[in-house]
């Protein structure tokens, strides 16, 4: 572990579930630029088939060309969607944002959502999260199904790709199967960043197994530290390096009522982070227009004064911001062709 741990900050963009849905791009672009000026690692945009609002991945694709550095992480559900389409859309978000994409995996647990599709009854939450884990796994396989240097454009032999570097994934999950390879070449980050909200215990195993960033909620620094340690242990049990896992505390921020205001919030963030309870924070502003603006203007300045927060982006990809390596492709060394 390095001597000065980087503080990772993210913020949620979606308006609260009350009130009319936001349909124009202008509001979201303005908020994203504000968060980018503040140097945040990434933005999330929540989504479900049961809440009013636009498709979150669409919204962040619309934001991508109007921002330069900030990571873009839409919620993507795995219960009623096609894994093949989902991975292609996330890979494409990575292409259009030039390496800034992630996805926050979520499930659709209600009967009301199931009736929007009429395809299957809702299984118990544990099964939904197991399936979500399988979707995460097949997405990584499909992102890796094109090796980075598969495109060769060799005029002499007339070959555009080296087909030995394209791979069938032949994935057999408990509820679906996918042949592959993907239609989308390997995205700029290799694998876009996988985020899982592990607030609910049913999601924790999937988070420890598959997530690059885990969101947790906790009432005290001790509770957060305990959760983080537990996630590290579980990740290690899956053969993963806990150093490649970021645990962010997700917290609703209402700076209108927060005692002590933006300064006290900076104290709290610095304290929890310095004590090693979490790697950073995921802020859910009660009123994004108001609270994100205040946070950027006041809290961020104080965190920068303490040397905890970047004043300019050093890297260009979301993995750069998070200090996560660009993964090698899982088929890259086998040499076996599709």
């Amino acid at each position: 572990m390095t001597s000065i741990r980087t503080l990772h900050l993210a913020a949620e963009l979606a308006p609260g579930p009350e009130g009319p849905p936001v349909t124009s791009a202008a509001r979201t672009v303005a908020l994203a630029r504000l968060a980018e000026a503040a140097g945040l690692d990434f933005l999330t945009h929540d989504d479900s088939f049961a809440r009013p609002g636009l498709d979150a991945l669409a919204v962040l694709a619309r934001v991508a060309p109007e921002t330069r550095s900030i990571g873009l992480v839409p919620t993507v559900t795995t219960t009623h969607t096609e894994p093949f389409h989902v991975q292609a859309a996330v890979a494409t978000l990575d292409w259009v944002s030039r390496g800034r994409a992630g996805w926050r995996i979520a499930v659709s647990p209600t009967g009301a959502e199931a009736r929007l599709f009429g395809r299957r009854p809702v299984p118990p939450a544990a099964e939904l999260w197991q399936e979500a884990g399988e979707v995460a796994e097949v997405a990584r396989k499909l992102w890796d199904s094109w090796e980075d240097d598969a495109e060769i454009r060799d005029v002499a032999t007339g070959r555009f790709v080296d087909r030995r570097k394209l791979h069938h994934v032949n994935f057999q999950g408990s509820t679906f199967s996918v042949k592959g390879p993907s239609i989308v070449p390997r995205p700029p980050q290799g694998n876009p960043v996988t985020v899982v909200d592990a607030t609910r215990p049913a999601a924790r195993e999937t988070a420890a197994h598959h997530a690059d960033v885990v969101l947790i909620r906790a009432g005290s620094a001790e509770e957060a530290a305990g959760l983080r340690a537990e996630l590290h242990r579980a990740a290690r049990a899956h053969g993963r390096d806990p150093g490649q896992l970021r645990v962010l505390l997700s917290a609703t921020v209402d700076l209108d009522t927060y005692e002590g205001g933006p300064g006290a919030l900076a104290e709290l963030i610095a304290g929890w982070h310095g004590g090693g309870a979490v790697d950073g924070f995921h802020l859910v502003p009660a009123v994004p227009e108001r609270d994100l603006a205040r946070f950027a203007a006041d809290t961020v300045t104080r965190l920068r004064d303490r040397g905890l927060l970047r004043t300019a982006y050093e890297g260009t990809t979301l993995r750069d911001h998070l200090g996560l390596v660009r993964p090698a492709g899982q088929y890259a060394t086998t040499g076996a062709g599709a």
Partner: protein
Amino acid sequence: MSTPPARKRIHLAAHFPGVNSTTVWSDPRSGSQIDFSSFEHLARTAERGLFDFFFLAEGLRLREHNGRIHDLDVVGRPESITVLNALAAVTDRLGLAGTVNATFNEPYELARRLASLDHLSAGRAAWNVVTSSDAFTGENFRRGGYLDRADRYTRAAEFLATARELWDSWTPDGRPRPFAHDGPQFGIEGEFTVPRSPQGHPVVIQAGDSAEGREFAASAADVIFTRHSTLEAGREFYADVKGRLARYGREPGDLKIMPGVTYVLGDTDAEAQEEAAEIRRLQVSPQNAILALEQIWGRDLSGYDPDGPLPDVDPDPDSALVQGRVRVADPVAVARKWRALSEAKGLSIRQTVIESAGRQSFVGSPATVAAALEEFVATDAADGFILVPHLTPGGLDDFVDRVVPLLQERGVFRTEYAGTTLRAHLGLPEPVWKG
């Protein structure tokens, strides 16, 4: 004397170069087929040329040949709707059309994604409805390849009707109302999460020439993407499809007929013809010539010399050699025709394939091409064109710089966008809200 009637206006769309041999990737000017900058360049060029819309095709499984990934053409592309949402940020008026398969999607999710695109682009979304029935593509999906070929349009028609019910489920003044659809293909109910979008319904495009496809387009589409690029075939198709509209209570102007066409420009007609021949040669590499032959013959012909004579064996009519693309209907007849051509002109395999490949639709000086385009539209062979460039991303530059101004001078193409939505560009009526 009455004034002559206003000339029929031409509609234009730009097709991003595809993953087939039309696209020449061996040209040094050929850029990335996946970097966003390529999409941005072509879309901005189309908007500079005041085009009606930009068009993306779709692929759901990489093509395979003889059990192996086809490697001779451009391979790989992004997911359409996500690219179009990003392009909405770098264009203001250009329509944004994505091809999305009705077989391997569900109405609720796709209707939501299309309505989102329509909102985020302020009324510029279009959906090219395609269908598929093959188990080969189905291997990438939960639902597999279960669909009978005959059921493709049944599902597509109910899919589109269901999407329209969802788009109509919010009142125009912004109140959500529950929906329920109970049909043979879909039984769904609940509440749609997206308010009615700027166009009411995104523009619907249909591509496909079969009788079922034409009927589906006549009943439900706003634009039909055809392959008829000769005057005679175009007029026949045009009359046939427009003649089907009255049965559905629709006017001839409610469905625009736009063939996908290629073009080559030169300073003179002769120069353009030379350039066109060179492009056809580049489109058929020696390896592609053998492949084209194998696609007809259905046999492994890798031992043949592309510069030598055609094989004397006959095609295998039951071959499963080619996967992920449509096989010609009567391979034996095509083989006979190719042999005759080869013998009559003394052509090698490669020369025969080049000679048999379709000519570019429009070849000539800018003035020649502009006149030909106008004739097509004026004589009811088309309402406009979906231009398919052979180069990524600069393949549309010369058309916009040199042909569009001539069309404008002739009074057959807009000199500015009059409206903001794709429906306005195409002169389509607002969909009636069915509450």
